[in-house]
C-alpha cells in the first residue's frame, strides 16, 4: 500500500496528524506520473517544481498546526482551467504556448486552501468529446482494460478520470457541460459530481458552452468529492452567472441516513434496447435504496428523448461564438499564408489550430444561429430546453432525488469507430438532460459488468440541493461497497 492508495480524506487527515509530509505525498505522486505518463498520457504538463514548492509551503503551515481545508493535498487540474504562468492548452493546437497572466477563481480557491498542483491533465479538445479521443496531445488511456487492452477513460475529463483511477492523484478538477465529469467517472469506476449551474465560478475556465459549463471534482469516493466541493463552490462577483448563495458544509451531509427520502426512477431512461447489464445494475441500486429506507417512486420525464438534440443545437451555437476569440491575434497559434491578409490569417490559423470535432461543432453552431435558421433551430431548442427543465421541476415536487444509469454502455476500446458523429453523441444520453436543466448530478460506481468493467449510477437533485445528492450517493456508495480495482493496478498490493 502506498500513500497514493489513500483517499483524499485520509491524506488530509494524515497530513494534519503528521503521519507523512506534503512533500513526500507530492513526490510519490509526481514520480508515479513520470513513470507512467507515456502509457496513460493523462498529463499534458507536469508541474514538478511548482508542486514541490507548494508542498514545502504546506509543510511549513502544517508544522505550525495551521493550514487550509485541503492543505498539502495533491491535485490534477484539467487543462481547461487557466493557471497563471503555467501552459494552458484546452488540449488544442490553437493555444500553443499560451501561459495565462491570470488564475481561474476555482484554482485560486484551491491554492488558498493549500492544494498542491501536480500538473495540467488531458481532455477532449475544448471539452468536446466523450472519450478523450480528440485531444491535440493524444488519447488518454484508462487503467481499466479488456483482454489486456486499455480502454478509453470517457470524456471530456478523460485525463482527470484516468489520473484518479490510476492513483496518479487523489482528485482532479473536471468540467461538465453535457456529462464530461460524470461519464468519465463512470467509465473509470470512480466518483464525480457536477454541481448546480452557478455553484462554481466559471471565471478563468476556457468557455465551451456558457449556459452549460460547470466545474466539479473527480475523486475516488463521495466524501472526497464533498470535501473538494466545499472549497470550490461559492459566489464570484467576476462571474455574472454565479449564484449568490451560501455554501453549506457538504461533508456534513454524509450522514448515511436516507430513511424516508423519495427517489424517482424515470421510465424514459429505460428505453427498449438498454444494455441488460446496465439495467440490472440500476435495479440493484433501486433495491439497495429501498433497503436503506428510501421510498422509490416511478416518475416520468416526458421530453427526455429530445434532450440530446436540444443539447447539440445549443452547445455548438454557444461554442461557435465562444471560440471566435481564437484567431491568432493575441495569443496561441498564428498561421499567416504567404502574401495573405487578415482574413487569410484567421482562416488558416483556425483551420490548422482546431481539430475535426471542434470544427464540426463550430460549423453546426454557426449554421443554427445564422439568418433564416435561428428560429427553427436555436430558438426552438431553447424552448424545448425549458420543457425539459420543467419536467424535472414537476418531478421534484414528488421526489427528493432521481436515480439513473450514468452511461448507456460500459467503457469501450480504442478500436470502437462510430460510423458517424451522432453515434458518439449518444454516449451523453443520460447525462445531458441534467445539464440542460442546470441541476446537480453525481456518478458513483454501481458495479462491474461481466467483463469486469465499471458501470456508473447517477443521482440527480434539485437545484442547489447538492446536500441531498451527496447524502443519498454516500449511503448508496456504502451499501454497494465497490472495491474493484482497474486491471492495470490489479497487480499492485491491495
Amino acid at each position, binding site marked *: 500500500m502506498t500513500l497514493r492508495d489513500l483517499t483524499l480524506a485520509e491524506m488530509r487527515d494524515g497530513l494534519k496528524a503528521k503521519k507523512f509530509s506534503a512533500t513526500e505525498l507530492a513526490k510519490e505522486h509526481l514520480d508515479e506520473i513520470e513513470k507512467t505518463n507515456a502509457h496513460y498520457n493523462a498529463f499534458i504538463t507536469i508541474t514538478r517544481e511548482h508542486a514541490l514548492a507548494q508542498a514545502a509551503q504546506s509543510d511549513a503551515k502544517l508544522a505550525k498546526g495551521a493550514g487550509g481545508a485541503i492543505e498539502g493535498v495533491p491535485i490534477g487540474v484539467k487543462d481547461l482551467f487557466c493557471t497563471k504562468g503555467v501552459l494552458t492548452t484546452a488540449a488544442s493546437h490553437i493555444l500553443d504556448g499560451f501561459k495565462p497572466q491570470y488564475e481561474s477563481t476555482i484554482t485560486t480557491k484551491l491554492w488558498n486552501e493549500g492544494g498542491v498542483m501536480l500538473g495540467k491533465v488531458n481532455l477532449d479538445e475544448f471539452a468536446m468529446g466523450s472519450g478523450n479521443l480528440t485531444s491535440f496531445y493524444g488519447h488518454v488511456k484508462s487503467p481499466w482494460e479488456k483482454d489486456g487492452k486499455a480502454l478509453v477513460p470517457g470524456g471530456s475529463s478523460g485525463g482527470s478520470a484516468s489520473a484518479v483511477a490510476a492513483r496518479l492523484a487523489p482528485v482532479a478538477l473536471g468540467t461538465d457541460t453535457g456529462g464530461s465529469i460524470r461519464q468519465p467517472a463512470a467509465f473509470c469506476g470512480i466518483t464525480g459530481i457536477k454541481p448546480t*449551474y452557478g455553484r462554481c465560478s466559471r471565471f478563468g475556465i476556457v468557455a465551451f458552452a456558457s449556459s452549460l459549463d460547470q466545474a466539479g471534482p473527480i475523486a475516488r469516493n463521495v466524501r472526497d468529492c464533498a470535501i473538494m466541493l466545499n472549497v470550490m463552490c461559492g459566489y464570484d462577483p467576476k462571474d455574472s452567472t454565479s449564484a449568490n448563495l451560501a455554501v453549506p458544509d457538504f461533508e456534513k451531509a454524509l450522514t448515511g441516513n436516507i430513511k424516508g427520502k423519495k427517489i424517482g426512477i424515470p421510465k424514459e431512461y429505460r428505453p427498449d434496447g438498454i444494455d441488460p447489464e446496465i439495467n440490472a445494475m440500476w435495479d440493484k441500486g433501486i433495491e439497495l435504496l429501498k433497503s436503506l429506507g428510501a421510498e422509490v417512486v416511478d416518475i416520468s420525464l416526458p421530453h427526455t428523448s429530445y434532450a440530446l438534440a436540444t443539447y447539440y443545437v445549443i452547445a455548438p451555437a454557444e461554442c461557435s461564438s465562444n471560440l471566435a476569440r481564437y484567431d491568432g491575434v493575441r495569443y496561441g497559434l498564428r498561421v499567416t499564408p504567404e502574401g495573405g491578409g487578415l482574413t487569410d490569417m484567421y482562416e488558416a490559423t483556425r483551420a490548422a489550430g482546431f481539430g475535426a470535432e471542434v470544427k464540426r461543432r463550430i460549423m453546426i453552431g454557426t449554421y443554427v444561429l445564422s439568418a433564416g435558421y435561428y428560429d427553427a433551430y436555436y430558438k426552438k431548442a431553447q424552448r424545448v430546453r425549458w420543457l425539459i427543465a420543467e419536467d424535472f421541476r414537476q418531478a421534484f415536487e414528488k421526489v427528493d432525488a432521481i436515480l439513473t444509469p450514468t452511461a448507456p454502455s460500459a467503457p469501450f476500446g480504442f478500436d470502437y469507430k462510430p460510423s458517424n458523429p451522432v453515434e458518439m453523441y449518444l454516449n451523453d444520453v443520460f447525462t445531458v438532460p441534467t445539464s440542460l436543466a442546470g441541476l446537480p448530478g453525481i456518478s458513483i460506481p454501481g458495479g462491474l459488468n461481466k467483463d469486469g468493467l465499471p458501470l456508473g449510477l447517477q443521482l440527480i437533485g434539485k437545484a442547489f440541493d447538492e446536500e441531498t445528492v451527496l447524502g443519498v450517493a454516500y449511503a448508496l456508495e456504502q451499501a454497494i461497497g465497490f472495491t474493484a480495482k482497474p486491471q492495470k493496478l490489479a497487480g499492485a498490493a491491495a
Partner: protein
Amino acid sequence: MSLDAKAVTKIARLARIAVSDADKEHYAREISGILNWVEQLAEVNTDGVPQMTSVANMSLPLRADVVTDGNQQEAVVANAPSSDYGCFVVPKVME
C-alpha cells in the same frame, strides 16, 4: 436539412475556417447528418413555451463604476504572436 458544398463554403467563411474543396463534401455530409438528427425537435409542441434564457434564476449582478483593472500593457501583449509598441500586430485586411 441537407447541406451542399456551397452551403459549407458560406458557413466556413462566416466561421473564418479554411476548408479545402476536398473536405467540403465531407463536412456537408457530416453536418447534414447531424442537422437531420436534430430536426426531431420540430416534433415538439412549443406553443406558448418561453425560451430558457438562463438556468440561474437570479437578477443580473451589477458592478460599481470604479476603475479596478488595466494598467498592465505587458501582461496584455505577453502571449501575442506579434506585438510592437505595446500594440498587437496583424496583417492588413486585403482589399
